[in-house]
């Protein structure tokens, strides 16, 4: 075969280009690897994950799983991961409400509400989250009044320097038996959906919207029935009360946790508000007009025509905002909440295992990101327009 002909063969050139790319990449990687080994050897360090099994011997301010300083580094990192996950999950749920509310307010014909939302979105989106978190923490949450002068909100919820005290409930001895009813009530929602859908299929006219009340009433009835059948109430309210110098009972959120969730929710909510506004505005005006001329009311047109289409536009950017929220929770370190990043930082300071720690950290965040986007992609593909 002629060599010159080979040089003109596009298939050969493609393979050659990729080979060269791989070789360059391998050389670069080799060079970096060489540097790493020299540097590590010079400092007398070795790479390995053995330290994970060593006792951490540092305390963690708050954790959702049991932890003591005598536990291992692995356990400490797990505590950090769980803290990150809790903040992210709670933040994602709350920020959706805030964002949708602000986005709809931004479209309100009420001038004051509209401008209020615009100011919120404008200020929050244009300033760094780190600064906002520090402001909320140092300027607001730890400057709240002391325990005795606590600010009381309905609930009761108490805002104090020491944290936020919420009214909460605690399961009693009969809680496990009652839990079965909760699960049944949850499943009943799907059953109702299925039944209503098949009823709708057989009916000639749209079902009365009152049928939707079934979603609320039947599960509520099941839950109530379950509770009433137990010898004692399955839940006991925990109401925070001022006894002596501190609050007893209730659920205490530390100032750090409260600040982080609040800051992340407010910040991400502003971005979601803009996405919601954009999504609703992007639905062609003719759609509303067509719906109105078909006899749908304004509310029906919004609910049945505009929102489903707007949702389709909103899901991908909202997904990336959820991911941002999860990633931004790493700023917890600035206000002292022990999230994954902060615990990993302490572990690094104690062990000096830079490469291992950063690898663990990146892989954890990457899996959180991938998992969230997987869930959102599944949801997205369910509501996506099926084109013919």
């Amino acid at each position: 075969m002629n060599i010159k002909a080979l040089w003109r063969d596009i298939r050969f050139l493609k393979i050659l280009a990729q080979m060269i790319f791989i070789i360059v990449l391998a050389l670069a990687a080799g060079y970096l690897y060489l540097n790493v080994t020299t540097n590590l050897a010079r400092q007398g360090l070795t790479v390995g994950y053995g330290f994970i099994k060593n006792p951490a011997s540092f305390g963690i301010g708050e954790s959702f799983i049991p932890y003591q300083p005598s536990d291992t580094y692995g356990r400490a990192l797990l505590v950090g991961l769980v803290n990150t996950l809790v903040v992210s999950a709670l933040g994602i749920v709350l920020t959706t409400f805030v964002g949708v509310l602000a986005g709809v307010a931004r479209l309100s014909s009420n001038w004051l509400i509209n401008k209020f939302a615009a100011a919120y979105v404008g200020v929050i989106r244009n300033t760094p989250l780190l600064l906002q978190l520090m402001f909320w923490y140092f300027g607001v949450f730890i400057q709240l009044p002391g325990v005795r002068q606590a600010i009381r909100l309905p609930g009761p919820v108490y805002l104090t320097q020491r944290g936020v005290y919420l009214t909460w409930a605690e399961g009693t001895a009969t809680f496990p038996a009652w839990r079965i009813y909760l699960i049944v009530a949850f499943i009943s929602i799907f059953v109702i959906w299925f039944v209503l859908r098949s009823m709708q299929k057989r009916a000639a006219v749209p079902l009365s919207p009152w049928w939707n009340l079934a979603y609320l009433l039947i599960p509520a009835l099941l839950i109530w029935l379950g509770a009433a059948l137990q010898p004692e109430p399955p839940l006991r309210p925990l109401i925070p009360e001022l006894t002596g110098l501190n609050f007893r009972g209730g659920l205490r959120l530390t100032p750090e946790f409260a600040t982080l969730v609040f800051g992340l929710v407010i910040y991400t909510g502003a971005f979601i508000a803009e996405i919601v506004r954009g999504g609703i505005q992007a639905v062609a005006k003719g759609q509303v007009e067509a719906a109105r001329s078909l006899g749908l009311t304004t509310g029906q047109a919004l609910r049945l025509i505009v929102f489903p289409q707007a949702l389709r536009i909103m899901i991908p950017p909202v997904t990336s905002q959820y991911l941002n929220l999860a990633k931004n929770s790493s700023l917890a370190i600035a206000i002292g909440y022990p999230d994954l990043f902060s615990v990993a930082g302490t572990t690094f300071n104690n062990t000096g295992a830079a490469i291992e720690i950063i690898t663990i950290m990146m892989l954890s965040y990457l899996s959180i990101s991938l998992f969230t986007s997987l869930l959102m992609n599944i949801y997205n593909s369910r509501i996506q327009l099926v084109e013919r």
Partner: protein
Amino acid sequence: MAVVAVKPPVLSIGPLAWIRKNLFSTWYNVGLTLLAIWLLYALLKPAIQWGATEARWGVIEANLTLFMVGQYPRSQIGRVWLTVFVLAGLIGLSWGVWKNAARGFALIALSAGAAFTLIALLYRWDVWTQWLIAEAILLIFYFIGLYLPRGALMAGLAWFLYFPFIFLVIAGSKYIAALPPVPSNLWGGLLLTLLLTVVGNFGALPLGILLALGRRSRLPVIRYFSIGYIELVRGVPLITILYMSAILLPYFLPIDMRPEQVIRAMIGLLMFEAAYQAENVRGGLQAVDRGQYEAAHALGLNGSQTTILIILPQALRMVIPALFNSFISLFKDTSLVALIGLFEIVRIARSILAQTEWLGTHREVFLFAFMIYWVFNLALTYGNRRVEEALGVGKR
């Protein structure tokens, strides 16, 4: 034709009608308006009360220079002014050359300069002369720009040279007597924030373009490499990348190479921003019409010629607004370098709070820092919108 009696319009103009239409049109709007008024009252009353009586705003005036340039040697501040003057000249020149596209930014710069002059005069700071000079330079270069032959080329070249120029002036060099070196750990405040933003944003662009092209490449190895890099960087928080470049980077370099902390932060920001820029550019590449490829192919251009001469110029023009947006978000994101020990605005704010005479002035200091970011971003957003309109993005 039947005569329809049309009622006379009920007070359709005037403030009362406006209030009725915009605040009290329906029963729920009445409720919402009352709610908003109550909310405003509940939020603003304590805020104004605090701002007017309790707040110690003196902390801002006492530390203004620190906010702007950090620990930059006070004897060398003239160098910072020099970069401001040159920037004013460049903005003026661009205004003269590109007219509409740059007018938004020029007007912002002019009004900002005027505002700063007035504020300085009001507080009897002596920097008002510098601001006035900057204004004059801007206007002079506007007229130069109007009559400059080959203006677009010259202005583009000047902007291109401006970035190395800033570095030379700020960092100095041991070979230039007039510009003694200033170690990078003294750079700080708004100066450092802007430097990091500019480097992160414009420095990442070439890498971003390469990654975007790589992601659309037909060669699987290159494509998967690009996808892997972009998704990896976009999947982790910026702070982990900054940590990596601050702590891990020295391990990957030869023993005698230990870059300064600022350089490490810049490398981290570059790596981070490149992935996001790549996605911006990819958006532009995908928006180029298929016919452009086919036409280029029909004219006998090969793959790389098509990309460089036909596709990229159109794609980049489309992503200019997106690039400004990432400039704005990087401007905010640079605050994270505070966590690896650099004295940008947020860290400066923290250090001011440690001064014994200004203990407990968290709100004042943080609010001022907010204002810097907010004003800057507002100005950038406004300028960006003007550019977008002038380029007719999305219209043509």
